[in-house]
């Protein structure tokens, strides 16, 4: 459907454009705002892929949680000095070339695999109630990974507190 495609290209362009701006901006706060914009566009793409729950998780956790933390830290560290410094390191050209090479490789792999995976004809049989389906999957098949993830979060929380504490 045409509306669907328009939405996809809108979100895709928004995501890529914001991502490019994020990497190139001098001002970190602007970078963070562009990253937020990318993440929101990605959330839109999730919604379009009928992943409603993930759409909300992306907004609540990523945009509403993680990025707030980023913005918070950026405000705490000194911006004025960082603004006047050189933003890119010495290996920038080499790095850019390397990244492009990597992209070409992955793109090539994609090209090779597209027929085998039947990529242009996705199945359209998502479970009707997305949230319930994810809940079932997490708490039945992926119970152990889920618990491990929670332990990981606990460890990260303790680590962050220890790290950010003023004097150890």
């Amino acid at each position: 459907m045409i509306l669907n495609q328009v939405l996809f290209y809108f979100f895709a362009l928004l995501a890529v454009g914001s991502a490019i701006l994020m990497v190139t901006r001098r001002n970190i706060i602007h970078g963070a705002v562009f990253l937020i914009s990318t993440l929101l566009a990605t959330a839109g793409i999730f919604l379009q892929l009928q992943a409603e729950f993930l759409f909300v998780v992306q907004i609540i956790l990523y945009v509403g949680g993680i990025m707030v933390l980023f913005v918070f830290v950026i405000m705490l560290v000194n911006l004025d000095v960082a603004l006047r410094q050189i933003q890119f390191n010495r290996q920038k050209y080499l790095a850019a070339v390397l990244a492009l090479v990597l992209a070409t490789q992955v793109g090539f792999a994609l090209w090779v695999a597209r027929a085998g995976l039947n990529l242009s004809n996705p199945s359209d049989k998502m479970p009707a109630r997305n949230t319930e389906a994810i809940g079932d999957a997490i708490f039945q098949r992926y119970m152990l990974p889920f618990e491990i993830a929670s332990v990981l979060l606990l460890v990260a929380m303790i680590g962050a507190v220890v790290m950010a504490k003023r004097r150890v």
Partner: protein
Amino acid sequence: MTNGHTTEVTTTVLGADEIILNMGPQHPSTHGVLRVKLKLDGERVVDSECIIGYLHRGVEKIAEHRSYQQFAPYVDRMDYVAAVSNGLGYCEAVEKLLGTEAPPRAKVVRTILTELQRIASHLLWLGTHALDIGALTPVFYCFREREEILKIFEKYCGARLTTHAFRIGGLQYETYDGFEEDVRRFCHDFEHRVDEYETLLTENRIWVGRTKGVGVISAEDCIALGVTGPVLRASGLKWDLRKAMPYAAYDQYEFEIPTRPTGDTYDRYIVRMEEMRQSRRICLQAVENIPSGPILGKVGKVLKPPPGEVYHSIEAPKGELGYYIVSDGTTQPYRVRVRPPSFINLQAFRKMAQGALVADVVAIIGTIDIVLGEVDR
């Protein structure tokens, strides 16, 4: 008020933690034009400095070029929320210099008006202090009662704020018909009103949390800094000039001097609330028995005090208000020096604010009860 050991305050951002925050002179809760330079670590006050003088009018200097009577209205403009008390202090100081005394009727009326003024001043303090801490409502109730007091002043002398109610040697005006009735009615209503304020605040969890343990100052520090008034009494020292060195007609009346032990903001609040009750008590006693007689003692039209000097102080709502007057025998004072309670009490700010949070700073400014007109003169 730059004390020598205040660290030098610069405007650069020091690391991630310390910032300089200029509170005032344009700030909603510095009660006028006080400017407080706060050195903050996060939200915690590391150091502070009060910068004053934005309202300096040279009142003391003006005195040297006015006759004794002419200067009297000027003192009303110092602590403009307690103009009657200022006038009382000045008139009594000059009377002492002249070696006269006001007639008994004048003394009693002076006492009544001054105590009403104390209630009005405390009401204004309570309203704004509560507003600073975020309670929006008490201020309107306080102003409602203050309005009654101001109406009595207006009926008595025509002015509400800067009253110039007294005259050297006694009173300027005879009391109006129904003065006693008005005061009595006010005192009758006021009893319940104070209880009303207390129900709003005294046991409110948030209020207690915001004021208990905030801005603590010990009696020793108060004495060392010269802090007087409710701030001193809330630190546990029972010192009130009305009892210690009675003036006007205070020796005739019974009243308590409320004190509290810890000297935090909550205690100062309790002390002031209790003081309003005691003032009401004094007013009631005084109004029952106003002696008849002249209202003005024998002072000439031109005042020429003998050469000499005098210091006289009264217990103003905010603390000890003293006048030091030097006469050279002419019609104009040679030198007038005012000891304003707000100015001296403000010295305690730095000590109280050490280690407090930004929100506490506001509470502390409020609890000292300063009036910048008096601080800067």
